C-alpha cells in the first residue's frame, strides 16, 4: 500500500506546475521547459490547439447561419461576453462560475487553453520608471520592489519572441523596445499627431506598439508564425499566427521541448502547503468532467490563473501556517485590487480628407501616452491616463425605397466622412477597501467558495474622467474636429479586463505578499506573476509587463532550482 502511494505520487510529480495557460502562464511554461524542467500546465477550460480549434477563423460572413447573431435558445446559457456566432466558442456558460458582486464588477474570463491571449487587444506598451516610481513619489499603495532597469532586458526578451511592431519614439515615459516595422497611422491620425506637436509640449500621438508580426524574423518562423494579414478577425484565433497568443507561440514552443504536460479541464482548488518542509508541495485540482479531486506535486509552482483567479486560489489555499490564505501574514491578500479606468470615451466627426481613404485593415490604433502628472504633480488628481485614438472612414448605403432602386443603392455604398474616436486608460490608485474575498458559504459547482468582488471607483477616478473629457474636447477642437462627444460611460470596474493586484509585490513582507522575484515572501517556491502581482496599475495595457515579469521570475526560479534552493 505504501509502495502504491509512492508510485501514485511519483506519477503525479513534476519539477514545476504552472497554473493557467494564458498570456503569462504560457511564458512561465516556455521558460521553465526551455530550462529543462518537467512542467505540468494546468488549465481549467477545454483544450484549444492552434489553428485546428479555431472553427470560425476562415468563415465568410455568408457562412454564418444567423450572420453573427446568436440564437435566443443559446443566449440563455451564457454570460454576455463574446455573444456573436463568430466567437461564441469563447463565451462562458453562465453556471460555470457564479460570483457575488458586493459592488458592480464586470468580469470577463477566457476559460480555455490560451485564455485571454486569444482575445486581447494586443497593445503592448512598456512601463517606465515614471510608473514604477509612482507609488513612492506620490504616496499611495507601496513602493515597487523593482525598477525599469530590472525589467528592461526581459521586455526585450519577450518582445523579440512575441513580435512587437512599433516606432522608436524616444519618449522617456514610454520606452522604446525591440520593434518590427510599424503599422502606419492614417491621414486623420497623422493630422492629429501634427496638431498635438504644434500645440503641446507635454503630449504626443504615436502609433500604438502592438503584438502583430509585420516582418517575420527567424524566431517567428521557427514558431510557425507568419505576417499579420490585416484581416482584423483576431478574436476568432489567427490561422497565420499573425498576432501573439499562447496557443500560437509559447505553448507549442514549450511542448516541442518534450518537457511540458498540458492538462486542460483542471480547475485548481488550492495550493498544498507542506507544514513540515515549510513550502508548497503541489496543487489540488478538480477534474472539470469527473469532479474528482486530484493532487499534483512539484518543487516550483507558478500561479498564472488570471488576476482574479490567482487571488481566489491564494485565498483558498488554507493551512495551519497560513489560515487566511497562502502567504497572507501581512493580511493584504486580496486587497489593493485595482484595474484601469476605461470610463471616458469620445468621438467626433472630421471635415475634409475626402480624397483620401484607407486600404486593408488596421489591427492597431494611435496612442497618446500619459501626459498628466508625469514629471510632477500638476492636477488635482493623482496619476493620469493614456488615450487610444482611432480614426476611420466608413461607408453608408441609402436603404430607402424598394425593388430595383433599393437594390442599386445597396450595391453602390458611398464613402462616408471620416470619424475619430478616443478612449481613456486611466491609472486607478489601489486602495485597501477595493478587495476580493471568498464567500464563507456559497460555493460553485466544483465545491470551490464563490468570489465576492468589492471594487469601486474613487473620487480620483471621477476627476480623471472629467479631465479626459476636457482634454479630448480641447485637442479635438484644435484639430478642427466637429460634433465632439466626450462621455463618462460610468462603466463598471473590470470592464477594461485589466484586473490587477491583490497579491502585490513589495520589499516589506509586512505590507506585501510577493518579493521582487515574485516569490511568496514566506513560501519561496510559489511564484505569482500575472496581473495579481501588480503593486500599481500604470496606464499601459498590462499584458507585455506580465510577460516580462513572468519570464524574469521563471529564469530566477530556474537558477534557484538548480542551486537546490526551492
Amino acid at each position, binding site marked *: 500500500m505504501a509502495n502504491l502511494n509512492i508510485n501514485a505520487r511519483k506519477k503525479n510529480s513534476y519539477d514545476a506546475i504552472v497554473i493557467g495557460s494564458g498570456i503569462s502562464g504560457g511564458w512561465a511554461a516556455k521558460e521553465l521547459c526551455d530550462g529543462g524542467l518537467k512542467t505540468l500546465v494546468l488549465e481549467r477550460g*477545454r483544450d484549444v490547439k492552434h489553428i485546428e*480549434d479555431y*472553427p*470560425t477563423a*476562415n*468563415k*465568410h*460572413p*455568408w*457562412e*454564418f*447561419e*444567423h*450572420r453573427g*447573431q*446568436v*440564437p*435566443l*435558445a*443559446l443566449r440563455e446559457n451564457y454570460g454576455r461576453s463574446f455573444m456573436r*456566432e*463568430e466567437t*461564441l*466558442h*469563447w*463565451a462562458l456558460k453562465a453556471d460555470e462560475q457564479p460570483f457575488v458582486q458586493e459592488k458592480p464588477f464586470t468580469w470577463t474570463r477566457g476559460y480555455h487553453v490560451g485564455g485571454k491571449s486569444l482575445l486581447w487587444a494586443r497593445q503592448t506598451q512598456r512601463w517606465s520608471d515614471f510608473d514604477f516610481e509612482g507609488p513612492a513619489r506620490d504616496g499611495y499603495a507601496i513602493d515597487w520592489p523593482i525598477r525599469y532597469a530590472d525589467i528592461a532586458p526581459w521586455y526585450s526578451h519577450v518582445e523579440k519572441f512575441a513580435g512587437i511592431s512599433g516606432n522608436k519614439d524616444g519618449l522617456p515615459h514610454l520606452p522604446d523596445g525591440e520593434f518590427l516595422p510599424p*503599422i*502606419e*497611422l*492614417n*491621414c486623420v*491620425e*497623422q493630422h492629429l499627431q501634427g496638431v498635438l506637436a504644434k500645440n503641446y509640449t507635454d503630449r504626443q500621438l504615436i502609433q500604438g506598439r502592438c503584438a502583430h508580426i509585420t516582418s517575420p524574423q527567424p524566431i517567428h518562423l521557427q514558431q510557425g508564425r507568419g*505576417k499579420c*494579414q*490585416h*484581416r482584423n478577425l483576431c478574436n476568432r484565433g489567427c490561422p497565420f499566427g499573425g498576432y501573439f497568443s499562447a496557443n500560437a507561440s509559447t505553448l507549442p514552443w514549450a511542448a516541442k521541448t518534450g518537457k511540458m504536460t498540458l492538462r486542460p479541464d483542471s480547475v485548481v482548488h488550492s495550493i498544498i502547503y507542506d507544514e513540515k518542509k515549510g513550502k508548497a508541495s503541489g496543487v489540488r485540482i478538480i477534474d472539470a468532467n469527473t469532479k474528482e479531486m486530484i493532487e499534483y506535486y512539484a518543487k516550483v509552482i507558478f500561479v498564472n490563473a488570471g488576476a482574479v483567479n490567482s487571488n481566489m486560489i491564494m485565498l483558498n489555499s488554507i493551512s495551519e501556517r497560513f489560515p487566511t490564505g497562502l502567504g497572507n501574514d501581512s493580511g493584504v491578500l486580496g486587497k489593493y485590487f485595482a484595474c484601469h479606468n476605461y470610463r471616458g470615451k469620445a468621438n467626433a466627426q472630421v471635415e475634409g480628407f*475626402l*480624397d*483620401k*481613404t*484607407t*486600404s*486593408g*485593415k*488596421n*489591427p492597431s490604433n494611435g496612442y497618446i501616452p500619459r501626459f498628466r502628472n508625469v514629471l510632477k504633480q500638476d492636477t488635482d488628481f493623482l496619476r493620469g491616463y493614456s488615450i487610444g485614438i482611432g480614426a476611420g472612414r466608413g461607408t453608408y*448605403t441609402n*436603404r430607402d*425605397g*424598394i*425593388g*430595383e432602386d*433599393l*437594390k442599386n443603392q*445597396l*450595391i*453602390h*455604398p458611398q*464613402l462616408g466622412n471620416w470619424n475619430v474616436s478616443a478612449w481613456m486608460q486611466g491609472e486607478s490608485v489601489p486602495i485597501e477597501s477595493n478587495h476580493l474575498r471568498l464567500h464563507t458559504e456559497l460555493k460553485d459547482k466544483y465545491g470551490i467558495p464563490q468570489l465576492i468582488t468589492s471594487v469601486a471607483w474613487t473620487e480620483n477616478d471621477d476627476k480623471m474622467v472629467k479631465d479626459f473629457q476636457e482634454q479630448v474636447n480641447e485637442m479635438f477642437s484644435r484639430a478642427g474636429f466637429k460634433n465632439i462627444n466626450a462621455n463618462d460611460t460610468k462603466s463598471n470596474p473590470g470592464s477594461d479586463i485589466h484586473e490587477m493586484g491583490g497579491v502585490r509585490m513589495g520589499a516589506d513582507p509586512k505590507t506585501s505578499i510577493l518579493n521582487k522575484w515574485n516569490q511568496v515572501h514566506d513560501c519561496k517556491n510559489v511564484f505569482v506573476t500575472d496581473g495579481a502581482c501588480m503593486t500599481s496599475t500604470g496606464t499601459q495595457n498590462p499584458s507585455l509587463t506580465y510577460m516580462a515579469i513572468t519570464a524574469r521570475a521563471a529564469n530566477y526560479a530556474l537558477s534557484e532550482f538548480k542551486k537546490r534552493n526551492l
Partner: protein
Amino acid sequence: MNTYFCPLQRSDGFYLIEQIKITTTLQYYYMQRRKSIKNMALLAGGLIALPTWAKAWSLETLPPMALPLPTLEGNTLALIIEAIIPESDTKGAKSLGVPAFINTMLADCYDKKVVENVEKSLTRVDNIAQSKFQQGFTALPLAQKQALLLEIEKGEDKDLKDFYSLIKNLTIQGYTTSEYVLTTFLKYEMVPGHYHGCVPVKS
C-alpha cells in the same frame, strides 16, 4: 465557395461534439421533411393543394437548420422578400436564398411576440391585397406588391410597420451578406494582407 450550411460546421464549434446528436436529429428531420414535400408533390400530381407555406419553397431553398414554423405564411412572406429585392439582370433575394435565411432568423433569433406579429401581419397583407386588388398578395404583379409594401412602410399602423421594417432589414442583411453581393459588388476581401493608412480615393 460553398454556401450550403452544413449543420456540423456550425459556427458554435465549441459545442460541435455535444451537438452532433442534435444536428443529426435535425438533419434527419429535414431529410424527412424534404422527402415528404417531394412525395406530396408527386402524389398530388398537381391536383391536391400543397399547404400554402410549402408552395414557395423548392428543395434548394428549404432552410437546412430552421426549426419548423408551421404557422408561418411562407408563401406570402417569400414573395414580400422577393418584391423588396427582385431578380433582374442581377440576382435578387430569391436566387440568393434570402427567404430561407429569414425563416431561420425568425425561428431562432426572435422572440415569440415578434414572430406572432409576423404571422398576423402576413394575413393582414393578404387581406389588404384582397380589398384593394380583389386578389391575394401572391397573385399581384410585382409593381402592385411593391406599391402595397411602400404604403405599409409610410403608413400609420405600428404593427404592420414593425413587421415590414423587420422583414426589410433582414432582407437587406441577407442580400448584402450573400457571397454573390459581397464578392461581385462590395469589394469583399477576407485577407487584405496589408494596411495603408492614407491612399487616394479611386473614382
